């Protein structure tokens, strides 16, 4: 048993679990110092997430875009690129999805995939700009994606305000019903739907939220990314470039093409996240005063998920729950600042960055035990 625990904790998953535990302890300590009762705050948070089926649905809704932006960052990481640009790719994806969703009038069976692919493709193109700039001009992707994020943000704001598309100041028109992926969106308000949900209160509660098929798409994308990275020659090629550029080139891989392709795929994921957010939850786009943080959260999710596809799924769900549960602690009776969540996330990432500390602790304990035996 002791051996098992030791092996678990010296591995990556162990470090992650350890970091999450530390984050809760640190968060508690800070809350205590600030004069709140940490036990009460955490109870409200847990209650906020698991208390009602509706709340769990909300956590999943919040997690959906984050899982996918996490995948985007993780995919780039695995191929040796640092995609700070998931934020911008998300924005471009949501803009194009909103445009396609409003201006096209098609049956849902065609409209939904078209809007989704449109958003994803736009995000992909946006990402591949950074890839091209790196491959052709040697511009570091960190700097180019930061620039592209801002260009995307202002472009987005311009589109929101376009005459004919702006419904009122700072908000665009809603997408057509045929592009919306909220589950049972019309049926749940119809006469039949209401009577049916009246008989099934738990389901009624769940479907009060804009629960949508986006989460299913997110899970499919997780599987797809895992498959591409681990089971295809394409994934092997892209990872080889990330692992050792020169060796890959020597092995006959076109490094420049691979960089552009990697950023295209990462960008597609970012764009897909944006498209799903518009199709499932927001239904329109609004003027952004600052970055919304989907892409930056994606970076943390990729790191907590150890850059693996399934890791992103779990880290994304954790984030979604923390975000939704965190918003709950602001209301009475607790009234604790929700920013404690960001401090906790920061702490998790901080400890994930230093696995050496945890291994040092283990080694130190072993040494002490050894001394005791002698």
């Amino acid at each position, binding site marked *: 048993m002791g051996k098992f625990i030791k092996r678990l904790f010296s591995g990556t998953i162990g470090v992650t679990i350890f970091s999450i535990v530390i984050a809760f302890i640190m968060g508690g300590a800070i809350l205590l110092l600030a004069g709140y009762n940490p036990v009460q705050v955490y109870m409200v948070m847990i209650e906020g997430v698991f208390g009602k089926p509706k709340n769990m649905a909300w956590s999943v809704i919040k997690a959906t875009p984050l899982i996918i932006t996490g995948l985007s960052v993780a995919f780039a990481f695995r191929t040796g690129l640092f995609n700070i640009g998931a934020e911008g790719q998300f924005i471009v994806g949501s803009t194009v999805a909103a445009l396609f969703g409003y201006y096209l009038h098609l049956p849902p069976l065609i409209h939904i995939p078209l809007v989704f692919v449109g958003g994803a493709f736009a995000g992909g193109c946006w990402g591949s700009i950074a890839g091209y700039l790196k491959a052709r001009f040697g511009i570091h992707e960190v700097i180019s994606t930061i620039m592209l994020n801002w260009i995307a943000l202002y472009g987005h704001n311009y589109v929101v305000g376009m005459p004919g598309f702006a419904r009122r100041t700072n908000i665009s028109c809603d997408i057509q019903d045929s592009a919306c992926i909220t589950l049972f969106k019309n049926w749940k308000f119809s006469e039949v739907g209401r009577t049916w949900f009246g008989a099934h209160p738990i389901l009624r509660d769940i479907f009060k939220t804009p629960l949508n098929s986006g989460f299913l798409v997110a899970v499919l994308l997780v599987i797809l990314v895992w498959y591409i990275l681990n089971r295809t020659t394409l994934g092997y090629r892209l990872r080889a470039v990330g692992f050792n550029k020169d060796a890959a080139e020597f092995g006959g891989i076109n490094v420049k093409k691979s960089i552009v392709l990697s950023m295209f795929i990462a960008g597609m994921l970012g764009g897909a996240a944006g498209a799903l957010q518009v199709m499932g939850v927001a239904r329109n786009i609004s003027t952004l005063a600052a970055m919304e943080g989907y892409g930056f959260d994606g970076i943390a999710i990729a790191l907590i998920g150890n850059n693996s596809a399934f890791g992103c799924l779990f880290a994304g769900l954790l984030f979604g729950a923390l975000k939704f549960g965190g918003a709950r602690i602001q209301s009475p009776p607790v009234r604790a*600042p929700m920013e404690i969540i960001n401090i906790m996330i*920061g702490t998790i990432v901080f400890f994930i960055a230093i696995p050496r500390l945890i291994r040092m602790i283990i080694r130190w304990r072993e040494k002490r035990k050894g001394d005791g035996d002698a």
Partner: protein
Amino acid sequence: MAMLNSLGFILGTTLMYATPLLFTSLGGVMSENSGVVNIGLEGMMTFGAFAAATVGYFSGNPWLGFLAGGLASGFLGFLHALACVTFAANQVVSGIAINFLGPGLALFLSRKFFDGATMTYNLPIEMKMPKYFNNMLPEGTFVRQVLNQDISVFMAFTLVLLIWFLLYRTKLGLRIRAVGEHPKAADTLGVNVSRIRYLCVILSGVFAGFGGASMSLAVASNFFQTLISGQGFIALAAMIFGKWKPHGAMVACLIFGCAQAMTIFIGGTGLRVPQEFLSMAPYILTLVILMGFVGRAVAPASDGIPYIKDES
């Protein structure tokens, strides 16, 4: 005359907006020349801006506020150094953590001190960074338009000189650069790699804090949630743009500042250009300049690589 007036306005505004970026960018220069990547500048700048505005408000003294901004971010710098130097962390990951911790702490404390608001109270003009040259410069002249600046502006440009001198003209500077290029060689010659890196990373936090402080105590007059929103990242980009050199970073920050000034200027002339396109311009310009004129950027050779001393 009108032309000169406009030019004066643009130059003055350029200096004003370049200053917070410049402080923060210099922080990046310090850290990365010693071989530690600092992507956490954004978080450091945010926390510094908050600490400066808060201490400035409660003490009524902008200088105390400015110093507090530096110290608060210096603490985040210390955390970054602890992770990157002592525990040989992945420096990018640690920086990302700082970017969550900084704004998280700032907003958490802001709600605590300011009745649940994510902004600090407005500072009256006498509690902001002073404009010492206000009375010396003749009224309504070009020189006054350009140089009637908060004292933080002059401090930032002086700091460029100081850091340039430190890095390229002193023994300590040589050691810093040696540690950034080839830590093992420096170690062999008896340079304490850890100590140099700690010093540089903490200083980088302090400067980023000054950057935040010059935002909340000079450019604006309080701290609020979107005050920094991305300027730390722009400062990081400016540092890369300036090829990891203090004077290079200065030029890059001036370009960003100028673009900001142009946006405001053209917005005021009533020219029918959508404001969004003006705001976009500096970022497009940066990419174009990087494509055409600058060429491949060269970071210090050991930037981002933890140094683990042989224990044998």
